[in-house]
């Protein structure tokens, strides 16, 4: 972590982040490292006690997969900091999208594999053997150790997820959002595993495979959901909020800001989410023909001043709004 010097300033391409966003980026990076540290302990402990339990195996796979989002976030944070170059005139913001797509694909693949694995375990009627271990001279049923480890993995993950969620929204970072979302849901994995192991304990052999199926299904579900958001972002879908659910409010604000200018008769924009920042093309129709250079500059300043997320703006004066470039404009 040679880059970890305090006071290092974060930037997304040409965008120098404002003070609060700087603080958020610092905090997010610290939390990503903390997550990696926690995952190292979780993966080690689960591996040590997992024995032949399917549910423990699924929980272990989930912990392993949980490494991808924080690593993708840290890598993307470094790469998006690069200033656009001659070869990459749009900057490096898409690295967030690529990181997100990779993470989603890994979740999807692993989830599908584990679902098949636990279903075949159920169908084959596999009875998981769970015997004794000697810990510090005491003979303990391994099931109790599994329960203890699963209970441990449950708590920090949820705390980390809750801490990261507002930062993901503030930084408009989808990878961080996916990471926080998975962490927040981690208690279900822990609890599912605990139920499975206790099920073995009371003599229900199928409880283990059933718990494994539940955990794998949740991994698969995460994969599908993230893949949809990642793909739609890379397909230049209109900018949405970080959870991919709603249209991003800046979209409306930009048009409203332009329309509020006294010389503007009509205005509409295409907003593309590059990951962290938006690239905007705004079409404006002047009230009295072609706007002056000063008016255009005024429009440019008004929109780029709205939010640091508006990194790149092109204002195009037109006679009428081009419907073929602005599919939504006809209905208005």
């Amino acid at each position, binding site marked *: 972590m040679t880059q970890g010097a305090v006071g290092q300033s974060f930037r997304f391409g040409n965008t120098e982040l404002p003070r609060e966003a700087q603080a958020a980026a610092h905090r997010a990076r610290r939390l990503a490292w903390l997550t990696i540290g926690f995952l190292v302990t979780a993966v080690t402990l689960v591996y040590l006690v997992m024995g*032949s339990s399917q549910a423990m195996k699924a929980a272990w796979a989930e912990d392993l997969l949980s490494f991808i989002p924080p690593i993708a976030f840290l890598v993307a944070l470094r790469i998006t900091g690069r200033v656009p170059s001659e070869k990459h005139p749009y900057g490096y913001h898409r690295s967030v999208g690529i990181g997100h797509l990779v993470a989603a694909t890994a979740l999807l693949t692993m989830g599908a594999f584990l679902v098949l694995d636990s279903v075949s375990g159920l169908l084959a009627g596999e*009875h*998981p*053997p769970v015997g004794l*271990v000697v810990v510090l001279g005491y003979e303990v049923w391994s099931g109790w150790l599994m329960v203890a480890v699963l209970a441990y993995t449950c708590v920090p993950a949820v705390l980390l997820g809750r801490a990261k969620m507002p930062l993901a929204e503030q930084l408009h970072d989808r990878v961080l959002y996916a990471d926080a979302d998975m962490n927040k849901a981690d*208690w279900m994995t822990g*609890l599912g595993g605990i139920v499975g192991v206790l099920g*073995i*304990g*009371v003599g229900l052999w199928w409880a283990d495979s059933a718990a494994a199926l539940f955990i794998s299904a949740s991994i698969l579900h995460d994969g599908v959901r993230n893949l949809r958001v990642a793909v739609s972002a890379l397909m230049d879908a209109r900018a949405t909020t970080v959870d991919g659910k709603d249209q991003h409010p800046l979209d409306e604000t930009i048009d409203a800001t332009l329309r509020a200018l006294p010389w503007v008769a009509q205005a509409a924009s295409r907003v593309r989410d590059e990951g962290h920042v938006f690239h905007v093309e705004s079409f404006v129709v002047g009230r009295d023909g072609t706007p002056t250079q000063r008016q255009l500059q005024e429009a440019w300043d008004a929109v780029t001043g709205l939010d640091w997320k508006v990194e790149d703006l092109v204002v195009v004066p037109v006679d009428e709004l081009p419907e073929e470039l602005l599919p939504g404009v006809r209905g208005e």
Partner: protein
Amino acid sequence: MTTRRCATRSAAVLAVAATLAACGVTVPTDPDGTLDRVRGGELRVGVSPHEPWTGTLPDGTPTGLEVDLVADFAQTLDADVVWTVGGEEALVGDLDRGELDLVVGGLTASSPWTSKAAVTVAYVTVTDPDGEPEGHVMLAPTGENAFLVELERYLLDQEVQAP
């Protein structure tokens, strides 16, 4: 809120476990009741000859260190031992089908039978021909965890000298 929910639910699960334990359900329990059946009844043991751990006398009676261990274990359960002598694969097949309760044959912790049988803790560790430590184990039916734990507890209590 989520953390608290997690903690509450874990607590609820533990409470359920405690209730079950109080109601006389021991943890772990055998899905197929092996330990209950063996206690005061018959312990069906497969022996695959592997000197000096297991072997047979000229009259067919099983002998060896593991045979002695098993006979002693059966005594703690007040069970009579029914011996079946055979090849390892056939015996593991019988164990998997529920026709045997235990298989011995100088097996080690690196046994390839883990998908068909539950491998016990090592009751003695010796040095293999490559100079690596090698634990000697027995095979129990998969998932019969009360029986497995009973056997392992017995094995861990023994002070076995490698032959």
